């Protein structure tokens, strides 16, 4: 026995807590622990929140927090899937804005309104059109990354700028206030007293989580992210799947745009501006590896909630406006460090 343990110890890659090496039980715990690593952080935040203001633990407030995280969480969901399969997409932050604008442009009547579209399509098509636009954007990203083989980070960065510019160009920089009812419904409606958006996000995360856990194509993402060659040898159509995921991701971003529009009552000209950093922060402190092949959607979700709770607690606590941003950054770092040590894995 001693020798097997020694042997295991020998193989344990450096830095994984010594627990990593020994036997089965601990390892499982560790794996699960990686996803739970933010739970303590969230609990601490809740305690602080409760201390700074009794209003924190009211359903109103908590539901509010969750509702505010819906759009962001969808982007994180999308980015998480893309990261797990070993890619990156920065352009999501623009897709959430440009997809609805293009949809409105195609759908809204050519005159009368403050923003004049082409009026090519009936109002009810706005949501599907918006999603299609998202998918199309994903396809373009896929083409750049998989066919032209240019660096994904910069390619999607260029797309980010270009799409934002496209939005400004089409909307002439205005917010679009009058949108078809069908378009704003999902973001505004409430089911069983809880915003519809919340239900939808939960469902989507649940679906995504199950897909990653039990579906063949879900597992394929981990394989592709972990070792593309092996995946290919095992008969997974690496490029096709990756492309599909890029499309799906952008589609989700477009859908986030739909919710956003309903939630905030208009397609704002700066919708999603500067979100991508938050998206990455949430995903990574949630335990998703930027090198692909590792992480769970549950972790990502905890990441989003952490960031949103921070804002909420700081507001309730009445942090002096001038030091708001500073604290925000500090807390990201703290959360990152905690999740790194809780999961016991170096995040190279």
């Amino acid at each position: 026995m001693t020798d097997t343990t020694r042997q295991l110890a020998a193989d344990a890659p450096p830095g994984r807590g010594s627990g990593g090496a020994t036997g089965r039980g601990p390892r499982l715990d560790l794996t699960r622990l990686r996803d739970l690593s933010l739970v303590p952080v969230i609990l601490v935040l809740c305690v602080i929140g409760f201390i700074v203001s009794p209003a924190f633990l009211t359903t109103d407030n908590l539901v509010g927090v969750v509702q505010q995280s819906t759009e962001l969480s969808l982007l994180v969901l999308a980015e998480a899937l893309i990261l797990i399969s070993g890619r990156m997409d920065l352009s999501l932050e623009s897709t959430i804005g440009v997809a609805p604008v293009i949809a409105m442009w195609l759908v809204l009547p050519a005159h009368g309104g403050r923003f004049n579209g082409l009026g090519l399509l009936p109002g009810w098509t706005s949501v599907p059109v918006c999603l299609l636009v998202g998918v199309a954007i994903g396809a373009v990203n896929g083409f750049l990354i998989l066919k032209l083989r240019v660096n994904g980070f910069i390619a999607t960065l260029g797309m980010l700028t270009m799409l934002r510019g496209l939005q400004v160009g089409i909307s002439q920089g205005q917010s679009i206030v009058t949108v078809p009812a069908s378009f704003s419904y999902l973001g505004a409606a409430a089911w069983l007293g809880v915003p519809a958006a919340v239900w939808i996000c939960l469902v989507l995360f649940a679906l995504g989580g199950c897909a990653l856990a039990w579906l063949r194509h879900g597992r394929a993402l981990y394989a592709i992210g972990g070792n593309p060659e092996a995946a290919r040898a095992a008969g997974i159509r690496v490029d096709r799947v990756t492309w599909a995921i890029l499309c799906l991701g952008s589609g989700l971003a477009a859908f986030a745009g739909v919710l956003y529009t309903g939630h905030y009552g208009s397609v704002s000209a700066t919708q999603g501006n500067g979100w991508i950093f938050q998206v990455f922060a949430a995903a990574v402190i949630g335990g998703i590896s930027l090198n692909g092949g590792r992480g769970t959607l549950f972790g990502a979700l905890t990441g989003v909630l952490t960031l949103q709770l921070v804002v909420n607690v700081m507001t309730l606590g009445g942090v002096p406006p001038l030091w708001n941003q500073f604290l925000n950054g500090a807390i990201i770092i703290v959360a990152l460090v905690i999740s790194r040590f809780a999961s016991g894995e170096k995040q190279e």
Partner: protein
Amino acid sequence: MDAPAAVHAQGIVKRFGPTLALDGVRLTVRPGESHALVGRNGAGKSTLVSVLTGLHRPDAGTVTFHGEPAPAPGDRAAWQAEVACVYQKSMVVPDLTVAENLFLNRFDQHRSLVRWGRLRSRARELLAEYGVEVDPQRRAKDLTVEQRQFVEIARALSFGARLIILDEPTAQLDASGIQRLFTRLRELQRQGVAFLFISHHLQEVYDLCTTVTVYRDARHVLTAPVADVAKRELVAAMTGDSPAERASRHAAGAAVPGAAETVLRAERLCLDGQFDPIDLTVRRGEVLGVAGATASGNTALGETLAGLRKPTAGRITVRGRTVRPGSVPHALDAGIGYVPEDRQRQGLVLNRSVAENATLTVADQLGPWGTVLPSRTRAFAQRVITSLDIKTSGPDQPVNALSGGNQQKVVIARALAREPHCLVAIRPTAGVDVKSKEALLGVVRGVAQEGRAAVIVSDELDDLRVCDRVLALFHGRVVAEFDRGWTDQALVAAMEGVTEQRRHAASEGGGQ
């Protein structure tokens, strides 16, 4: 004869950009036949493998299985039904469990839902069937090299294909591992499974195979029954020149006088979980071998000597000067040269030039005030290229364009660059073809002849033959010490921990 070949490849041409990897080669493996494919590094073996397994589409030529044309390039399932393969480079997904790696993308034929419980039990059965004791729950990256290799082999075999390709499966296995593999393979032979077996260990070819095919420089050279070709002819065919005097016999040269000054000494050196306190001394002109199987801790010992790992106790001295433990720079300055175990991982900066890699350790000697003069760098590189005869188009070629053998030479050149008092080399000939192997071992021997010293950490008998003295490690303890003239059986037995005969047992830990 009459039965259609398990696989028949004809006129296969494959180029990678400028590189002609395969130049109209042919290969035929009959049903139930064990076919060896040998050739020097870069001969095109692995490329042929990827063609035969449908990973690469040949630029020209045809492949047929049992007389039928090969499946469509995209249709992996069909390929896998025809031929299973253990590739040269690891094909596991590090972060996934062994179970999942075994059944990657074929969890359940019909249902797209994965049933984990069932998957695990199937994995356990599979591993048990092939005698691999690995917990299917473990993540692949936590496995030892050997365990991983066996998992891949088990996976390959589990497809139930009648043809199995093994590309250098033994390169990373120790003797016992190889034995286990071979027993398993022989079973399959009896069941009439055909093999294509690639290795740089010609002995294995003779042990296992009935027919051998030799490639040289992307061309087919010969195919013949193994029985009909003597080793020297085989080598001749691979290298294309008249057989050299093989140095497989024990190293020549005068015995080292016990009085010769000690170059490297380790006192009660120990690293928890790796090896127990060990004393060893290496004298001028001596080559010390440290033999040991995978888990024996001999690699760890080597890395500790080189300063890559910090010992938990004990001290290392070079010519009486104590070396600061766990610091590579100090080890270098003290005069310890190091050839790491895995050239791809620790040896080379793959996208940089041969010159740069070769001079990595002597950057401080190539110019005044911390400068590195390109002229001197290139001159230096040119010298080692000629002295070690490294096959390269010039000092400026990136090393990732060199074959394994030549890459390994660059690593050794780097280790010798500082003219160390003592060279520590871990498995210096891993995955290197016979010709290069002799050259490399010759170099190591040469170091000793020049009145310096060397330590070879390895489990390959060919490596250990050049040693004057061999310590055998087993589970972190020195279980035996051999002078020259040891027999293979004795050494292997010692490495396997079968220490019934313990002539000059080491002063230290004769344990059990």
